[in-house]
């Protein structure tokens, strides 16, 4: 990818090496198969072991748990490269890292961390994250999934979750539920639910036109009995799952850049080689403007995410700053993908090319992890001090 602004000079040698290693993996293992996976509606499970060997899962968590202990910028670059392959592949990694491993790391007991994190880094245990419910998407505080504690400290879980990435693949689900009949969002706690528990059911969500190379499932919990140590002891209130989402959204802001880069590169290559009216279409002003707009937006997004990553590494970033990056970069990527698709003419609608696949995928990314609109409201509140939610 053209580094028009010499952004590499802002990265360390290790950060570049990490990016290049994941890039090579995606070029060799993901790109050759992903178009067909998308058409077939199949997540390529066969690449999971090699991703684990590379060390992408929980890459920014500490080495004592078998993770790579990378900076947040390096973690972001990994997401960028994975999503240059496909948003579904990046989603798998985001969920495993930021939405399943991170809550165990942040809210789990020492025993839970020791038990799960090293095996999750190796992908021997795959996780998913259940927050959204059929009737509570943008407003998870309304959730109705409920866990009740028995006298002996064990739990019984009832309810259901919807749109759960990795839901049918996972060995454990990190499920967010209200507790003991209290319907306020202060009672929300996280639970580690083994997916082979009696009463746990995962159903593949059929008919998706987006993120087709990703497992999206509905989860049903019917009197699922959980041991006392299933609860994440340090979780408490809606703030806990939102902290996980802040981690994941940070990575998504990078991932979207990767998808946009793939589309830009494809469009540029195509424009240089497609001859119409006796010359490459890249020589026409309209296509040049398209390419100029794409590159400009990609460069801006890269600088936003990179600076955000440095703030995160310094420990000073805010969730509102993450909202700005997620909102801008994903929206940018949807535009770039659509323009690339159009530049490609009829070929642009084929799965053989990446742009339309990215364009379709990015519609999910636009909606999940806080919709674009919801991030507008978060920013609106940060700017005006007035909440539009309540």
């Amino acid at each position, binding site marked *: 990818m053209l580094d028009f602004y010499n952004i590499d000079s802002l990265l360390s040698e290790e950060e570049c090496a990490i990016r290049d*290693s994941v890039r*090579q*993996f995606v070029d060799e293992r993901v790109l050759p198969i992903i178009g067909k996976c998308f058409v077939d509606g199949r997540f390529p499970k066969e690449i999971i072991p090699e991703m684990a*060997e*590379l060390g992408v899962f929980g*890459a920014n968590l500490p*080495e004592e748990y078998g993770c790579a*202990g990378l900076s947040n910028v390096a973690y972001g670059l990994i997401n960028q490269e994975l999503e240059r392959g496909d948003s579904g592949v990046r989603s798998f990694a985001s969920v495993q890292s930021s939405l399943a491993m991170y809550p165990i790391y942040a809210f789990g007991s020492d025993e839970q961390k020791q038990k799960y994190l090293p095996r999750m880094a190796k992908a021997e245990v795959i996780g998913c994250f259940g927050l959204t419910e059929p009737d509570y998407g943008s407003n998870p505080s309304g959730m109705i999934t409920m866990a009740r504690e028995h006298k002996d400290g064990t739990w019984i879980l009832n309810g259901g979750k919807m749109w759960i990435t990795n839901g049918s693949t996972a060995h454990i689900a990190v499920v967010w539920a209200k507790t003991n009949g209290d319907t306020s969002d202060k009672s929300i706690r996280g639970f580690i639910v083994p997916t082979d528990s009696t009463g746990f059911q995962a159903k593949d969500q059929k008919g998706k036109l987006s993120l087709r190379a990703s497992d999206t499932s509905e989860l049903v919990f019917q009197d699922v009995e959980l041991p006392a140590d299933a609860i994440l002891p340090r979780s408490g209130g809606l703030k806990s799952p939102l902290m996980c989402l802040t981690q994941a959204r940070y990575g998504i802001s990078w991932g979207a850049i990767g998808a946009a880069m793939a589309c830009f590169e494809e469009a540029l290559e195509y424009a240089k080689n497609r001859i119409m009216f006796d010359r490459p279409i890249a020589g026409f002003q309209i296509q040049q403007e398209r390419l100029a707009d794409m590159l400009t937006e990609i460069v801006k997004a890269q600088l936003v995410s990179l600076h955000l990553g440095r703030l995160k590494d310094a420990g000073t970033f805010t969730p509102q700053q993450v909202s700005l990056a997620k909102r801008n970069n994903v929206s940018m990527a949807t535009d770039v993908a659509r323009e690339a698709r159009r530049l490609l003419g009829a070929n642009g609608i084929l799965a053989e090319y990446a742009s339309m696949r990215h364009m379709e995928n990015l519609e999910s990314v636009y909606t999940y992890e806080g919709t674009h609109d919801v991030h507008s409201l978060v920013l609106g509140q940060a700017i005006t001090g007035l909440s539009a939610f309540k």
Partner: protein
Amino acid sequence: MKIAVCIKRTPDSESRFKIAASSAAIDEAGLKFDIDDFASYAVEVALQLNEKQGPGETVVYAVGPDVVQETLRKAMSMGADRAVQLKTDAVPYDGLAVAKALAAELESGGYDLVLFGKHAFDTSAGIVGTATAELLGVPCVTAASKLDIAGGKGTARRELEGAAEIVEFPLPAVVTIDEGIARPRYPSLKGIMAAKKKPLETKPAQLGPVRVTVKSMELPAERAPGRIIGEGAAAVPELVRLLQTEAKVL
């Protein structure tokens, strides 16, 4: 086992190449360089041998200017234990000059095995490995597609046209490695972080005299555009005629 792997930094083979103004080299502007493909197979073979056989050491060597440190660091991020740069301003074209520098360094290293790629993508000369073996006075096996070591002896497989041969040799030895022997691992993210802390030593290269140089380079002639001469069976007579008279292949 103590294994040395000599690696070269070469441009990505999928680049579009241009000839530099000197007309005797390629234009390096905008090219991406990495560890040579064959050399990366050799690194993988060394790592696998030492993983299989228990405690050992894999040391990587590169002759060249400071940019080769990046290549050495990549081999260490794959798992090599330490690296040595034999520093020169530029890598001479003459393979024997490079082999002299490597042999001078490897001689006292106490290596059981010295591995090379069968040749490097940029020159396709394949001299450095064999010349180093000769200078060290040890047996040399070229283009191995399989390599096993047991009881101080090596067994290698070599692919021939329509057949293969299995050769045996005592250690220490030099083996040059063919592609496909083992898929080079991706540098893992942990490996990249660990490589930062591994020793990379820099010493002046004691190059031999440079007697062979490149005078000029040529790129293949541009292919003429294709021509459609018709469709279906009706076009066959004309096609045959052109293949005979114009292309002269029939």
